[in-house]
């Protein structure tokens, strides 16, 4: 099953894009989706279908995964349909107002959110988390000139990504050890249940902080002196594919602005 957020390996145009350019291109497409509504949704949908086609990532499993959030979408729709103040309501009682305007607004919100989710899941399908972190580092780098430590933040996120498998296996071992001793969360009241989680969570945290300590010692011993002045093995690469995708994103955003003005 292709879950939302899962990386789907491939060699398509979107997979091969430079990390920084990919973040910019997806931001342009996201802005287009946010701008468009009404008949504009057809343009957004066409754009998404084209992007999925170009990436080679199947869209149907992604749409099926969105079904997991149906309760959320139904709530958003109903809240808008029943609580939107309107003069043309066909049912009104106390704070409840049921109107066409509310229904339309609810539908608009739900469709926008679904389209955004489909787009963001495409980004995570064509790029690994490390590549997305790299892309964000490149895009946000200019902020470091006004004192925001973007490079340090990117280093922290990259380190976090590499810590995940290690900590996951460690926490699994601890959970299994707890279970083998019969220490599973039980008890009817919440304080008892919370207390019974102590043998599970406490060792996980201590092991995690021990690893952080060890890594900081190792990095310092190897001469790490912070992100300032650090060079990179791979710089930003803007080739033909990147220019084509940037132009497509820019064109899509311009089209959305024009359509928004006309509609």
């Amino acid at each position: 099953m292709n879950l939302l957020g899962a990386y789907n390996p491939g060699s398509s145009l979107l997979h091969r894009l430079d990390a920084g350019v990919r973040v910019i291109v997806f931001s342009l497409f996201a802005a287009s989706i946010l701008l468009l509504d009404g008949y504009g949704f057809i343009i957004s949908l066409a754009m998404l279908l084209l992007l999925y086609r170009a990436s080679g990532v199947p869209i149907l499993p992604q749409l099926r995964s969105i079904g997991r959030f149906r309760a959320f979408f139904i709530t958003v729709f109903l809240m808008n349909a029943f609580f939107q103040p309107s003069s043309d309501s066909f049912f009104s009682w106390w704070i409840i107002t049921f109107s066409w305007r509310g229904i339309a607004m609810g539908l608009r919100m739900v469709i926008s959110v679904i389209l955004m989710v489909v787009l963001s899941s495409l980004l995570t399908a064509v790029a690994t988390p490390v590549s997305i972190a790299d892309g964000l580092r490149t895009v946000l780098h200019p902020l470091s000139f006004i004192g925001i430590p973007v490079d340090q933040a990117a280093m922290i996120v990259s380190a976090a990504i590499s810590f995940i498998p290690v900590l996951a296996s460690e926490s699994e071992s601890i959970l299994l050890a707890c279970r083998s001793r019969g220490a599973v969360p039980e008890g009817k009241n919440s304080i008892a249940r919370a207390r019974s989680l102590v043998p599970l969570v406490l060792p996980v945290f201590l092991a995690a902080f021990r690893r952080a300590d060890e890594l900081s010692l190792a990095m310092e011993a190897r001469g790490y002196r912070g992100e300032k002045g650090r060079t990179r093995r791979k710089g930003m690469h803007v080739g033909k594919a990147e220019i084509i995708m940037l132009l497509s994103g820019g064109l899509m955003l311009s089209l959305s602005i024009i359509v928004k003005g006309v509609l």
Partner: protein
Amino acid sequence: MNQTLRRSLSTAVCIALCTVLPMAFHAIPNGGVLFSPMHLPVLLCGIVTAWPFGLLCGISGPLLSFLLTGMPGAPMLPQMMVELGVYGFVSGLMMQLVKTRNSMAKVFTSLVTAMLMGRIAAGAARAFIFARGSYSFPAWVTSYFVSCFPAIVMQLVLIPLVYLALEKSGFLGSEMR
């Protein structure tokens, strides 16, 4: 020892725990919903490191978890980022602002203030941005205090315990505090 590097890597493990802990808690029936496991590393990160690191952990923790596991769901992601960002920021800030020799009093004050401020910020974000016009005070009380009561208890029990254990193990030297 380079304290900024140590703080950075402590933040990195807390961000990683934002992904790992929910996976472990999902092994317990209804554990993810009842115990809000992602809140633990963020609150602890703010308390152990400092507010900029806590803020980063609160924002990037749920984002990374979403990118890797699809949890929390995309519709919930922005409001969780607001809530956890405020948790990390306020817990770190309060540790700097509260001046007392009793470290447990400091931790409890920071923890309670952060938990309260985070919930207020998340409620405000839902009321004015993410669910504008369709969010009420009773809904806020139910979702942030009643349904997650076990999580509140667990955070108040576990975080001071972890802090105490880190203090005893020598991880929190005077330069880290």
